[in-house]
């Protein structure tokens, strides 16, 4: 039997996490550039931009839930914090976009700390309850304090003006993708760093983590702040792409979709955040084309998108318990073993798991 050759040396990415993540991000950026500039229609480009900002929110939540073990039903509210902060800055100041986005991230991170501090004492379902009511309650402040937030009409955001003849929609999409890739690199490095190990240690066993000298409460609050900061940036991008920030943009269903999309993609993985984003953005699109193709009436098919999303969520949770990315990983590692590893590899692997 001929031996399957190992992939050449250059195929291996550098071991240094930062360098490796940067290379991946640059490759991805190139791919996205081709995708948005040459392959996709403008409308689908807009959708890719949406996927990017959902991926930011989902990635942040993935860190919180997947790596640190804290659940949040309130990320829609944290997105609202980022969105309103960015919009208020756009209305009242003339900062540049990057500064506005950074302040939005900061404001949401502060909100995350405020939520995260009481959260340190709460277990899963109790934290879920607290964040759930937060998701419902916080956006209503936009109506209550109409003079600041302009109620249901909301605050109109200023879309970034593109250089030269670039299509403004394409420009915004690029900004969103760039933001997402920067966040992905930062999160990936964070997960490789001391903080990532601390997050996971706290998730796995709080007592053991504190015996190992980790400040459990502080670690949990940091995870919440990081995650909230991501939600804030996603919210600011949502504000930019919808052109307005109003309380109606942050319904409870948004928070639930963020959580569902994150788990659907694969909790704790950053690639999973992209899968989740694709599901959130494309399912409604697919549903409407399916119902159009099936010739269903408009009144009845309006719910088809939600039904499909819910059904896929149920099926994935039951058939691929670690989400889409987990499913791919399983398929991938199976293929990996079969294609790239001599038979002996199996034995080492089973020994490794055996000793764990």
């Amino acid at each position, binding site marked *: 039997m001929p031996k399957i050759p190992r992939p050449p040396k250059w195929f291996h*990415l550098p071991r240094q996490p930062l360098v490796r993540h940067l290379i991946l991000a640059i490759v991805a950026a190139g791919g996205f550039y081709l995708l948005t500039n040459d*392959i996709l229609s403008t409308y*689908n480009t*807009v959708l890719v931009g949406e996927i990017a900002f959902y991926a930011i929110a989902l990635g942040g939540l993935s860190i919180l839930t997947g790596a640190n073990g804290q659940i949040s039903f309130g990320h829609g509210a944290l997105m609202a914090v980022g969105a309103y902060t960015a919009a208020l800055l756009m209305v009242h100041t003339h900062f540049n976009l990057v500064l506005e986005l950074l302040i939005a991230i900061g404001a949401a991170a502060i909100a995350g700390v405020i939520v995260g501090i009481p959260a340190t004492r709460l277990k899963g379902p109790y934290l879920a309850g607290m964040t759930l009511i937060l998701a419902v309650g916080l956006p209503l402040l936009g109506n209550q304090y109409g003079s600041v937030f302009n109620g249901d*009409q909301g605050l109109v955001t200023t879309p970034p003006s593109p250089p030269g003849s670039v299509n403004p929609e394409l420009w915004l999409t690029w900004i969103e993708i760039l933001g997402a890739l920067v966040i992905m690199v930062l999160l990936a490095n964070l997960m490789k760093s001391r903080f990532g190990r601390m997050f996971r240690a706290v998730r796995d066993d709080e007592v053991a983590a504190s015996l190992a000298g980790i400040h459990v409460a502080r670690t949990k609050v940091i995870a919440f702040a990081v995650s909230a900061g991501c939600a804030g940036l996603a919210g600011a991008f*949502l504000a930019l792409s919808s052109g307005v920030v109003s309380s109606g943009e942050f319904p409870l269903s948004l928070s639930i979709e963020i959580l569902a999309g994150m788990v659907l993609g694969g909790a704790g993985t950053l690639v999973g955040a992209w899968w989740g984003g694709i599901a959130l953005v*494309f399912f409604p699109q697919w549903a409407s084309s399916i119902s159009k193709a099936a010739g269903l009436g408009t009144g009845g098919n*309006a719910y088809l998108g939600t039904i499909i999303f819910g059904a896929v969520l149920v099926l994935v949770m039951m058939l691929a318990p670690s989400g889409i990315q987990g499913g791919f990983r399983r398929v991938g590692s199976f293929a990996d073993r079969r294609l790239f590893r001599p038979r002996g590899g199996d034995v080492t692997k089973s020994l490794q798991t055996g000793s764990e």
Partner: protein
Amino acid sequence: MKQATDITVPSQQRRAKRRSLKAVVAVAAISLIAAACSSSPSSSSSTTAAPASTPGVTSSSITLGATVPLTGPAASGYDEIAPAMNAVFAWKNAHGGVYGRKINYIYYDDAYNPASTATQTRKLVLQDNIFATVGSLGTPTQTAVQGYLNSLKIPQMFIESGCNCWSDPKYPYSSGWEPPYSVEGKILGYYIKNHFAGKKIGYFTQNDEFGQDVVKGLDMEIPSSDVVSRQTYDPTSLLSGPPANQMAALKAAGAQVVVFATIPAATSLAIGAAEGLNWSPQYVVDSVGADSPTVGPLLSIIGKGKGLTANTALNGTIFDDYIPPEAETSNAWVQVEAKLLKDYAPATYNKYGLDGNTEYGIALAYTFVQALEAAGPHLTRQGLLDAIARDGKNFITPGLVPLSYSSTVHFGYEGAQVFQYEASAPQITVPSGSWIGGKAVSPVYTTSPGAGPVNVYSGTPPPPPASLVNSA
């Protein structure tokens, strides 16, 4: 320690390689999915858009779009409007279309979420290549895309909202159709001032631009000393129970006349909550939340006891309208509207009948058909705007007052009439039941959205044109 690192190197490399593979797979998959989605629009746009012509217009078709709530808490009632509008377009298409062009009306669900409106509107523009949006619903939702549509010079026509903001000179491509909420508020306030002088007035209004604008109009007419309590509600909080506390507060303040600027669900829940307090003040309801076939079914919640039904609860309630109430079955417009809906949107007719929402849709769509005709055979976006500004005042519509469009005024009606639900008036019979009808209790009034007097309008509305009556 050194040894340990040596051992881990190969496994780390393996992991790195696996990750790189996965990233490549992911990017490839994303591009596949995206490419699959992008193929359809590019082909469709190349077939529909004739070169050097207006987007969405071909020699044989006009593509129009809208975003409306079909799901979510705002969908109730409002999901009837777009299908009813489509009945008018289908009627027009069956009679040769507009200058030989058939109208293709595409509407998407935005669940009343502005973020979703923004996405779906881009889909209409970029993928469906629409000529204009017509009959998109909601103030916050349409505010979100006002800048976008105007920057592309795409008409944002006949927005289903009474916000003054559609007449903003900054956005020439936007236009409303129904009266500004403040106009309705002023007319109701004027009526209250004249008929309930010295009574204690209470407000119960939606905590948004709609409620606030109605209150602005009311306050221009009603002396502030007469207003004893101003209660508001959030549309979303209706789902967490009836506005019982607000009604209790109005009762506690001694209000004798309560003015509602409410959506229909809030009207019924508030009246139900007042019955829960054994309290029946004089209600004055803005047209948005006054339609008895929409309000009535929910009012059956009051339930047994005292022989109270929705119709007795609504009896005596005062409201305004700017198109003939559908109870006036002798009105030629109402007859032709019902026939249109029955013939060209039978599913909608069988489900809802001609109620306030479907009538609204038909009247709005009929207005737009006239605008398209006025724009002439060489249809352009600017041409449509010019035609409305030039001829809008002369369009023949079901409205009780003529349209007031001009180059600066971008909302339809600046007037309304006051009605009162009365047991003796003819009832409205729709699939959901028979509901109380109203009688006019005032002349038709006109007024401007800002400061300015409320005037009696002496003209009579034109009957539906023969072409419509005969062909419908």
